């Protein structure tokens, strides 16, 4: 997509979206008079397709809150001041300017918006599983802006996510980091300035050993972890040669252009553009982050070696269920880890997954995040992060960082999000209590200072039940049924 267009996408498109929702309200009735009957009808209802954009938070103050900053501890009774979508002030003594929209968070806990470092949300397609290397496919080509899952993730405090391909392929395709600006046009989901990425995958999914193959259907290469390595080395060997060809061409072309003599010969021929190899060259040149789906220690080490041989490093190993066994090697290779809290035993390669993984990797110096890989789990990542305290005794601050600042660092956006600090984007979750306490839930979620989720207007079960019947009979005490 066009970058220039994207940069102003948020404002231009949102302005337009606003215009449209107004148009839907005003234009439609004006159109009706062509039919006499319609003119007498009540005004048309608003378009059911309208996606009203929350008002921009020009000046917002969240007051009386317990603020868990993720970067500099907890402020017991503080205020966050948001100006033009950024955090302008945070602290115990912040004055609320006149005219600010005040969100009274008395008794509530405020955390940075949660960042999910492994998501497949808002996608129309996940795997181009027909080949094991599909570096050319781009997740942003399949993004969709209106799925319910985005709303539900917001309702769990999630404000940013790394949206990845599935793990069918050794090299799945180009990922995208999004902000959950639900309701805005699809380009506005994209987290501007986030480094580009690519999804690799190792192990059982790539081998397709757990896939039912129809009789007569050929198996796809690779079928072993050895073949996975070979597939990677082959792809990067081709990419290296491709890069060399382009380098040579650029040199020739420059020389040819400079050479004005009549005998300078035919203009050099550029190599064929290869969309599969372009992103791999970017990887080798450090311009694209590698996110590697991985389970076992052996395959993690394999990829570290392959990457070293081709002059790049793996940005993050995701799932990385045996990361606790090779944490030192990961640190040495400059790789981070993004894992499940406690998922295991769902397949053979997840058998030595331990719930202490996050804690242990962190102890060894790995930057660790806890991710969802699921539209469902994404809604309760705060509970998942607390499991790092339960298993392995991770300190509370670090557990919170595993779903905020650490994923921000992994995704290269920690200058923008991940903690409650002056100058950062006002991406914030407001909890009814301590985010790790059992009865707490998210009441409000803001991105860029805009309220994208508000429990008071949310489609709750309670609201649904009130619509269904006027009033339930008074509650009775619980009594034994089968006794």
């Amino acid at each position, binding site marked *: 997509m066009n970058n220039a267009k994207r940069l102003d996408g948020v404002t231009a498109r949102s302005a337009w979206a606003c215009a449209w929702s107004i148009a839907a309200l005003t234009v439609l009735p004006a159109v009706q008079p062509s039919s006499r009957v319609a003119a007498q009808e009540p005004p048309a209802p608003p378009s059911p397709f309208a996606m009203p954009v929350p008002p921009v938070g020009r000046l917002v103050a969240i007051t009386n809150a317990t603020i868990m900053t993720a970067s500099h501890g907890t402020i017991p009774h503080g205020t966050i001041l948001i100006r033009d979508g950024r955090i302008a002030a945070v602290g115990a003594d912040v004055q609320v300017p006149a005219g600010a929209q005040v969100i009274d968070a008395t008794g509530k806990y405020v955390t940075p918006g949660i960042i999910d470092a492994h998501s497949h949300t808002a996608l129309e397609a996940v795997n181009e599983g027909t080949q094991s290397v599909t570096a050319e496919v781009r997740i942003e080509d399949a993004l969709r802006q209106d799925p*319910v899952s985005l*709303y*539900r993730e917001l*309702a769990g405090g999630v404000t940013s996510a790394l949206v990845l391909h599935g793990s069918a392929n050794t090299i799945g395709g180009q990922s995208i980091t999004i902000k959950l600006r639900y309701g805005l046009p699809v380009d506005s989901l994209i987290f501007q300035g986030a480094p580009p990425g690519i999804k690799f995958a190792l192990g*059982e999914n790539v081998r397709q*050993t*757990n896939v039912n193959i129809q009789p007569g259907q050929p198996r796809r290469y690779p079928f072993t972890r050895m073949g996975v390595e070979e597939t990677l080395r082959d792809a990067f060997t081709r990419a290296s040669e491709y890069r060399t060809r382009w380098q040579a061409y650029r040199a020739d072309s420059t020389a040819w252009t400079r050479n004005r003599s009549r005998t300078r010969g035919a203009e050099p021929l550029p190599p064929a553009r290869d969309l599969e190899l372009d992103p791999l060259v970017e990887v080798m040149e450090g311009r694209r982050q590698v996110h590697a789906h991985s389970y076992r220690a052996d395959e993690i080490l394999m990829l570290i070696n392959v990457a070293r041989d081709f002059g790049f490093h793996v940005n993050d190993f995701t799932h990385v269920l045996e990361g*606790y*066994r090779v944490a*030192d090697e990961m640190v040495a290779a400059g790789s981070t880890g993004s894992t499940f809290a406690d998922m*295991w*035993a*769902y*397949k*053979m*390669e997840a*058998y*030595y997954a*331990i*719930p*202490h993984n996050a804690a*242990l990797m962190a*102890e060894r110096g790995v930057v660790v995040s806890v991710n969802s890989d699921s*539209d*469902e*789990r994404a*809604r*309760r990542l705060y*509970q998942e992060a*607390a499991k790092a*305290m*339960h*298993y*392995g*005794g991770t300190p509370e601050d670090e557990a919170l960082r595993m779903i905020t600042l650490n994923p921000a660092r992994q995704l290269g956006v920690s200058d923008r999000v991940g903690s409650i600090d002056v100058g950062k984007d006002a991406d914030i979750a407001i909890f*009814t209590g301590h985010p*790790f306490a*059992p*009865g*707490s*839930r998210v009441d409000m979620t803001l991105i860029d200072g805009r309220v994208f989720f508000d429990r008071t207007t*949310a*489609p*709750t*079960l*309670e*609201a*649904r*039940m009130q619509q269904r019947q006027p009033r*339930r*009979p008074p*509650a*009775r*005490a*619980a*009594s*034994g*049924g*089968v*006794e």
Partner: protein
Amino acid sequence: MNNAGRLDGLTAKAMRAALVGVAAVAVLPAVQPSSRLAAQAPVPGRATAITNATVVPVVGARIPRGTVVIQDGRIAAVGANVPVPAGAEVIDANGLFVYPGLMDGGTQLGLTEIGNGADGPTDLRELGDFNPHDDALTAVNPFSEIIPTVRVNGITTVLTSPQGNQISGQSALIDLNGWTAREMAELPRAGMIFTYPRAGGGGGFGGGGGGGGQQQTPEQQRERVQREARALRDYLANARAYAEVRSRTTDSASRPPVNLAMEAMIPVMRGESPAIFDVETADQIRGVLSLADSFGLKVILRGASYAWELADTLAARHIPVIVGPTTQLPAPGDPYDMIYANPGVLARAGVQIAFRTNSASDSRNVAYNAALATAYGLDPEEALRALTINPARIFGVQDRLGSIEAGKVANLIVTTGDPLDVRTTMKYVFIRGQSMPFDDVHTREYERWRNRPRPAPRP
């Protein structure tokens, strides 16, 4: 899996010390058995006393500074002023809490080891639509590596169930310790597992109908559901007829030929053994209620994400509901918090609820499933009951399990706090009075790799 790890006593001890943390260090010497690695058979007659604890008996009021005395696998005494018997092993639980062991109302524990790619140790789903004579207990592996990982989170008793088809078989209520499945059993036959037919493709729930593929058109699904509902009704009619004939014919001469499946249905048809129905939608629940009316079944519902639609009916009819897992997404048009809020709605309407995870490896999270419900309207005290005394009542073992009362089985947990709180850790887990080792595949791996030396260059 790894014997070396299990035998390595020192390592495990060190690991446990690390886990327990500063607060409990003082406690350890008093209680430290000779080895924490294998469950120690308690010395007959010797008591264990947990003192200075906040005791939450679930039935009855909290005891701020109480003592629980365990003897011969049972709770011998509980109270504020209970004397410690002479010679008792004393656990000073100052600052700690004692709760009844937690229960998961629906798991596959012991029946499966690995979800995908290793079918060998999995015994979940028999072939055929009606398998009432299959007993889960037959296939429970007491040495499943998953069981200790669940136990260390305070889950002491679970209902483990076969899956799938229309009648999956008999579930078993088991304590999570024992040398044989029979030893583990609280109830070898706790209830017959049914799946009420459902058209697929609603909200992505696991409990779907018997074999509805995604490939079916809505029309085909409808036909299948009708066919299956009819088949189930016919089956129950046959079972009732068989049970009636059997009750009239006592001598073997006049008895009809024995049909093992029909034999297994007799206690269900007599209302002695519960009929546990896995359902989700209100339509399915209505179907179950209609069967209950026709055949006099003692019905327990499980799953039941849409039970809130019929909360008053279920309360009035005293139908208990084992909800969960709460870690599911509602269907797209449903309220965003429907799955979380459903348990609270049911409880407030007076329905007796319990929780289930419908999983083996995730069974350790049953209390956190309940915690999600408390964030969306379920009273925390009721949530605790739903993990303890309610399931005991639902399965008819309230005289043995589910609360801290003298005379009950000593399934107890000693914790640093509320078991619904993920941050809480377990200090002791007692099953039938036996202190369980905090030793499982995960703690072993943790301990081993925590002690991995920093990689050194090859000499």
